[in-house]
């Protein structure tokens, strides 16, 4: 069960790969099936249910592309 989720502003992503490398559960990868408005290959979440909401991806992102939300009990 995911601890949280990330929201990616795909058109601001420059496909730099830093977040992919930092994700401790390896659920990020560049989505080679598409390019964004700027012509970069943006990042995507491969297995969202494994997200632990550690915020490592958002911390290392130089372009503030990622917002992290934690799931809270109702």
């Amino acid at each position, binding site marked *: 069960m995911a601890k949280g989720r990330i929201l990616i502003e795909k058109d601001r992503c*420059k496909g730099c790969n*830093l977040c992919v490398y930092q994700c401790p559960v390896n659920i990020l990868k560049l989505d080679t099936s598409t390019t964004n408005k700027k012509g970069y290959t943006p990042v995507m979440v491969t297995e969202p249910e494994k997200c632990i909401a550690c915020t490592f991806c958002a*911390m290392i992102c130089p372009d503030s592309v*990622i917002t992290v939300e934690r799931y809270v009990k109702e």
Partner: protein
Amino acid sequence: MKTKTIYEPTEGLTERELTYCPGCTHGIIHKLTGEVLAEKGLIDEAIGVASVGCSVMSYEFFNCDMQQAAHGRAPAVATGIKRVREDHTVFTYQGDGDLASIGLAEIVHAAHRGENITVVFVNNAIYGMTGGQMAPTTLLGQKTTTSPTGRQKKAAGEPLRMSELLATIPGATYLERVSVHDPKHIRKAKKALEKAFDVQTKKQGFSMIEFISTCPVNWGINPNDSLKWAVDNLIPYYPLGVYKDATEGDHNEK
């Protein structure tokens, strides 16, 4: 499912898309600076000084009043601003070409006078904006467009260590060298910036945080490998840590 936002883009930066290369650490350092200023409630009254280098357009990114400085002159410009606006948070944001080459006199004297400003120093051992020339901080043997066979000690001297240099100056209050190559170091770097801005708020004098940074495009290495290259090559020569902490002293003496 109810959610709580635990990390989002900071109000310390504007919504402008950063113009830096993919994976450049400028973005991380901008973010940390913006976060610290916003979280401490300083962003609304801050005045930043943009320098000349890749961050020449930083006046578009920091969400406060900004003044652009000539190459190397930011500490002098910041001095002028702080002296007439002493209750405002004044900071400069400079690269290694700007601060350690053409601006060496200005940074030394701002520290020497103990100007109550905060300097964000981005050191990636190269001139990025102009296409990868040798900087005073370029390592021995490092190949750049103006040291094509690698920096030679005889011709160009050994690289300049700015935190160490400024630490010898009595007027400098807080100097720390940090890195942003992984979340653990990013957290530490943010704490260092918090400390530096506290020094200014408490009127304790001059503070500088030196960030070991990368330049994927001009180093010719991809962003992740650049971070690794920085860890393996820059950090051993430019060790991380606090180089000066004179916050305990009496800062009220004339």
